[in-house]
């Protein structure tokens, strides 16, 4: 095994150890478990956005739509249909993925800023539906009157509602499956065609890759995982409101991905961690916390164009 593969394995091991042990070390550094849960959930969302941005070369500014559909799908299922966390999760993921699959063909022919603008536009459609359809979605007040349900595994029941550690590990298991699937796809022949499209679309096309179709598949995969994150986000808060669908939420995901490093697999997770921590700390100090996050973002982009993890990797190499 060469040095770079060794570094990669060491980095992966470090990430998983930190995540697995988070409920134990987080309180010692002044954190609390819900903060860790937010990092993992938003990290998954940012990694999904980055599946498109960093590995296919397509910038979506509308992923909050599928994140929000996952969230509303989960919340509304538990509120109106079946009081089951598993069912909520499944419906949420299906809702977000299906919406992505249907909208995909309308946008995949666009590139660059046009793609980004149209993804925002479609995202806003869902926002306004959630905002205006008061008697079903709860409108501006959000979807209330439900909580995540204890997990029934057949042989035992896990109380993820009252036991925060159990809920954290529930999230982490789903995160691990999602992230593992993404890594798997990226290392496959299909994943390499995505990187080919990112690197040089014209060359990819003339190597016999039907670029639009591959971008569509990548888009659907990305929407699927961001709706997983959205469903988890609803379960985490026991609440959904239209802001989960708003375009600024999409912007936050992009900021997280770029902040952490969009060419590195774990970069967006690091970006999400920084974002959540800054938000948690700064919002207790000032109402204008977003301007400080923005300033930090500008500095990172100026001095570390490949994000924080990208800069660290360069230093190690």
């Amino acid at each position, binding site marked *: 095994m060469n040095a770079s593969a060794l570094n990669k394995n060491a980095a992966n091991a470090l990430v998983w150890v930190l995540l697995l042990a988070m409920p134990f070390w987080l309180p010692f550094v002044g954190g609390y478990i819900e903060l860790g849960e937010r990092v993992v959930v938003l990290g998954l969302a940012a990694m999904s956005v980055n599946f498109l941005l960093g590995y296919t070369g397509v910038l979506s500014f509308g992923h909050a739509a599928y994140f929000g559909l996952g969230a509303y799908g989960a919340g509304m299922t538990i509120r109106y249909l079946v009081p089951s966390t598993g069912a909520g999760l499944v419906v949420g993921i299906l809702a977000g993925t299906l919406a992505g699959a249907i909208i995909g063909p309308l946008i995949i022919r666009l590139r660059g800023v046009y793609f980004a603008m149209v993804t925002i536009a479609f995202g806003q459609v869902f926002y306004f539906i959630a905002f205006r359809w008061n008697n079903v979605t709860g409108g501006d007040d959000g979807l209330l009157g439900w909580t995540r349900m204890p997990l029934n595994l057949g042989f035992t029941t896990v109380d993820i509602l009252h036991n925060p550690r159990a809920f954290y590990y529930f999230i982490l298991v789903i995160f691990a499956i999602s992230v593992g699937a993404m890594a*798997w*796809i990226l290392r*496959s*022949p*299909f*994943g*390499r*065609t995505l*990187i*080919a499209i990112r*690197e*040089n679309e*014209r*060359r*990819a*096309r*003339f*190597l*016999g*890759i*039907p*670029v639009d179709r*591959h971008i569509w*598949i990548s888009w659907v995969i990305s929407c699927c995982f961001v709706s997983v994150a959205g469903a988890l986000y609803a379960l985490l808060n026991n609440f959904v409101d239209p802001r989960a669908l708003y375009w600024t939420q999409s912007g936050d995901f992009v900021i997280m991905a770029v902040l952490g490093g969009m060419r590195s697999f774990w970069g967006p997770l690091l970006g999400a961690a920084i974002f959540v921590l800054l938000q948690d700390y700064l919002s207790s100090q000032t109402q204008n916390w977003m301007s400080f996050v923005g300033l930090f973002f500008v500095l990172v982009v100026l001095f570390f164009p490949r994000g924080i993890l990208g800069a660290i990797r360069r230093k190690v190499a």
Partner: protein
Amino acid sequence: MSLLQVKNVSKHFGSLIAVNDISMTVEPGELRAIIGPNGAGKTTFFNLITGFFTPTSGSIVFDGQDVTHLLPARRVWCGMARTFQVTEIFPELTVRENLRIPVEVASGLRLRAWLSQADDVKIRERVTELLAMGSLTDKAERPVGELSHGDQRATEIMMALALKPRLLLLDEPTAGMGDQETYDITQLIRRLHKDGKLTIVLIEHDMRVVFHLADRIMVLDQGKFLAEGTPPEIAANKAVQTAYLGQAA
């Protein structure tokens, strides 16, 4: 049967007629050169054959199939591969990765999320073979963007070959190269043609290369067909001399 039949194609960009009613027939195993002064429409003609543009009129038949309106990727599946005037590669990937992608596409694996051990071995072997053929073995692990212009060109040609094409189209393969690099690429093309029995159509400005390689030459001028023939015929053609040297000659 002819491998490629281009019948009376034209391409208009607004009022500009870039390619005006040009026909060309390429036989299997032939090496055809297309030459002409700047602005003759050579690259546009190439782009019509490979599907970068759709012709305004005329048709293109490849191996008995009408491909006039097929997308570029589909024409690749039919057996056409091309390189570009300005090298088109994946600069941040290594040479090996650059070659691996087209090998996987050509093996019909592009949508696969999982590779069997046997497939993986086959792909690696094919990549190794292509690396050797392009004299790139010792640079296999370097990002191709860091390599010399000549090596980038060789990589691009090998990427096209990785697709196992029946027709290889090369757009100015020696553009911007020094004498040694030009010689190396010329030898490579010659080997592909003579030993590999590959049908090749190339656009070239360097007349030494053209006359060294080509079985037949087609000359274009200002979007129009000017002449076609063997290298000695073209060298003796008055119209061609006029087009290249101007009216005074």
